[in-house]
C-alpha cells in the first residue's frame, strides 16, 4: 500500500487548560473524499488549522506528501499543495472576483517553478476556474456584490486556483438552501474527479453522506470513529455523541 497523502500523527493542541485536540491520528489517501464531522467544539476546525499551519500543533506531526510540514508557514504549505477554504468566506474585498482567483495563481502556481503563467494565460486560467464554479459572468464584480452561495463558490475557486493536491473545505455549505447545498456537493465531487483529494468538514449530514467515501468523527478533540459512512453513522458512540447518551 502506498503512503498516504496526508498523515496526521498523534497531533495535540491545547488552549490554556482546554484540550482541543488529543493525540489525533488521521490518514488520507490520494484521491480520497473524506468527511470530517463532529459536534460544535469537537476540534474539527482546530485540526484543519493545525494541518494548514494557521495554528501550530504542540505534539505530534503533520506529514504531507511524505514530508514533515510541522515547521512550515501556511503559505509554504499552500505552495506544497495543501489548500483550504474557510468556514466564513474570507474573500479579498477590495479585489474583483477574477483578481481573487489571480492571487493564488500568482503566488502559488507561479512560485512552484516550472511554467510561469503570464498575461493572457493568467486571464484564461481565471476564466476557466470561474466557469468551473459558474462565476464567469461576475468576474469583474466585487465580492460584496455576490450572494452567499456565490461567495462560497468563490472561496472554493480561490482554493482550487492554488492547484492543490489536498483541499480542505471547512463548512462550505453552512447557511445555504437545500438546492445550493446540492450544488456545492456536486462541485466538490467534480473537483475530486479532477484529481484533488478532499476533506470536507460539514454538519449537513445529507451532504456528508452523498460526498464522503470515508467518514471520520471527532468528539472532544478525540477521533472516535473512522470508516465507511454507512457503518460510522450506526456506531453507538457516534450516535451517542450526536444525540446524547
Amino acid at each position, binding site marked *: 500500500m502506498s503512503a498516504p497523502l496526508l498523515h496526521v500523527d498523534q497531533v495535540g493542541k491545547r488552549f490554556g487548560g482546554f484540550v482541543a485536540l488529543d493525540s489525533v491520528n488521521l490518514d488520507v489517501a490520494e484521491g480520497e473524499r473524506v468527511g470530517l464531522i463532529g459536534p460544535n467544539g469537537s476540534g474539527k476546525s482546530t485540526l484543519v488549522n493545525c494541518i*494548514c*499551519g*494557521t495554528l501550530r500543533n504542540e505534539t505530534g506531526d503533520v506529514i504531507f506528501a511524505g514530508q514533515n510540514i510541522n515547521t512550515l*508557514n*501556511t*503559505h509554504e504549505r*499552500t*505552495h506544497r499543495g495543501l*489548500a*483550504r477554504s*474557510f468556514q466564513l468566506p*474570507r*474573500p*479579498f*474585498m*477590495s*479585489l474583483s472576483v477574477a*483578481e481573487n482567483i*489571480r*492571487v*493564488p495563481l*500568482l*503566488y*502559488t502556481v*507561479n*512560485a512552484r517553478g516550472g511554467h510561469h503563467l503570464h498575461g493572457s494565460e493568467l486571464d484564461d486560467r481565471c476564466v476557466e476556474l470561474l466557469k468551473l464554479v459558474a462565476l464567469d459572468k461576475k468576474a469583474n464584480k466585487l465580492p460584496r456584490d455576490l450572494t452567499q452561495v456565490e461567495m462560497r463558490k468563490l472561496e472554493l475557486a*480561490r*482554493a482550487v*486556483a*492554488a492547484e492543490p493536491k489536498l483541499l480542505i473545505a471547512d463548512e462550505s455549505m453552512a447557511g445555504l438552501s437545500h438546492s445550493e447545498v446540492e450544488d456545492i456537493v456536486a462541485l466538490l465531487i467534480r473537483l475530486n474527479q479532477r484529481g484533488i483529494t478532499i476533506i470536507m468538514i460539514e454538519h449537513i449530514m445529507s451532504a456528508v453522506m452523498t460526498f464522503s467515501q470515508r467518514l471520520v468523527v471527532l468528539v472532544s478533540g478525540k477521533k472516535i470513529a473512522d470508516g465507511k459512512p454507512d457503518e460510522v453513522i450506526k456506531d453507538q458512540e457516534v450516535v451517542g455523541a450526536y444525540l446524547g447518551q
Partner: protein
Amino acid sequence: MRTPLFIICEVVVATVLYLLFRHYGNDYFFFAGYTVLQFVVMATAWNILGGYCGYVNFGSAGFFAIGAYSSVFFYTVGQNVQDMDPGFLTSVLHVIFPIPVPILIVFGGAFAGLVGLGTGYLTLRLRGVFFAIATLALAVVIETLIVNWEYVGGSRGAYIIPPNTVPVFGPYIQYLFVLMLVMVIVGLTAARLIERSRLGYGFATIRDDELAAEASGVPTLKLKLIATVLSGALMGMAGSTFPFYLGFTEPGSVFDLSYAVNSIAMPMIGGTTSWVGPLIGAILLGTMQQVATVTISSVANLLIVGLMLIGFVIVAPNGIVGLWQDWIAKRSKS
C-alpha cells in the same frame, strides 16, 4: 498607460512646473513648492505600507529624521575633514567630501530603508493599533538617540550652510526643488509599478485579510518587510534634503508632529488604494497649508488638516479617489 510613457509624462509635467515657477514666480514659489512636493513623497511613502498593506505607521517623522540626520552626519564629517592636517587619509577624504546632495539622498534612503527592515522584523507580527503604537514608539526612540548624539548637534541642533547658488539652476532652492521633483517622480513611479504588479496584489491581500492571503500562498511577512523598507527608504530620501532646505536642523523641527499627521491625512483624504490618492491629498492639503501660512497663520495648518480629515472620514472614507470611483460606478449603472 505603459510605465515608460508614464515616466515621460511625469518628466514633462515636472519640467513645465519648474519652467513656469522659474518664469512667473519668485523664490517663494520654490520654497512653498518644495514643501508641497516633500509631502507628495511622504504621503506616497506612507501609502505603500499604510494604504496598500493596511499597516498604519505613526512613525513617519522617525524615518524622515533618519534621512535628515544622515545628511547632517555626512555634512559634519565633511566639515571636520576640511579642518584636518594634510596627509594621505585626509587627501582621500578631501576627494570624497563634501558628498553631493544626490548621493546624500541615496544614503538617507538606504539608512531609513535599513531601519525600516529592522522595524519590520520587530513589529510586523503586531497588527492594528499595536503596530501603530510601536511605530510611534520607534519615532520617540530615534528622537531620544538624536537628542543625545552631540556629533550631529544633539538638542542644540546643527547648522548646514548651503551655497547661495548652484551652476545651471541658479538659487540653491531651485536646485533643491528639482531634486524633490525627481524624488516625486521616483516615488510615484514606484507606487504605480507596485500597484499594478504581483507585489501590489500581495499588498492588497494583506490589507484585506492576512489569514486568507497566507492560505492563498502569499508570503505575508516577506511582503510586509518589503513594504516597510520601500516606505522607510522613500521617507528617508524626502528627509535627506531637509537640512539643506532649512539651513538649521534640530530635533524639534525634524520630529515635528505635523509630519506624522500629514503623512497619514494626505493619503486618507486623497484615497489610499491608488498612487493618485496621496498625490491629490498632498497637493490639496499642502497647498492649502501654504496659503494658510501666508494669509492666516502657520499655526492654522494642523487645524485645517484635522478638520479636513474629520470631514473626509465622515463623508468620504475612501477619499477623493473613492468618491470619484463611486461616481463612475453610479454613472455606468444608470
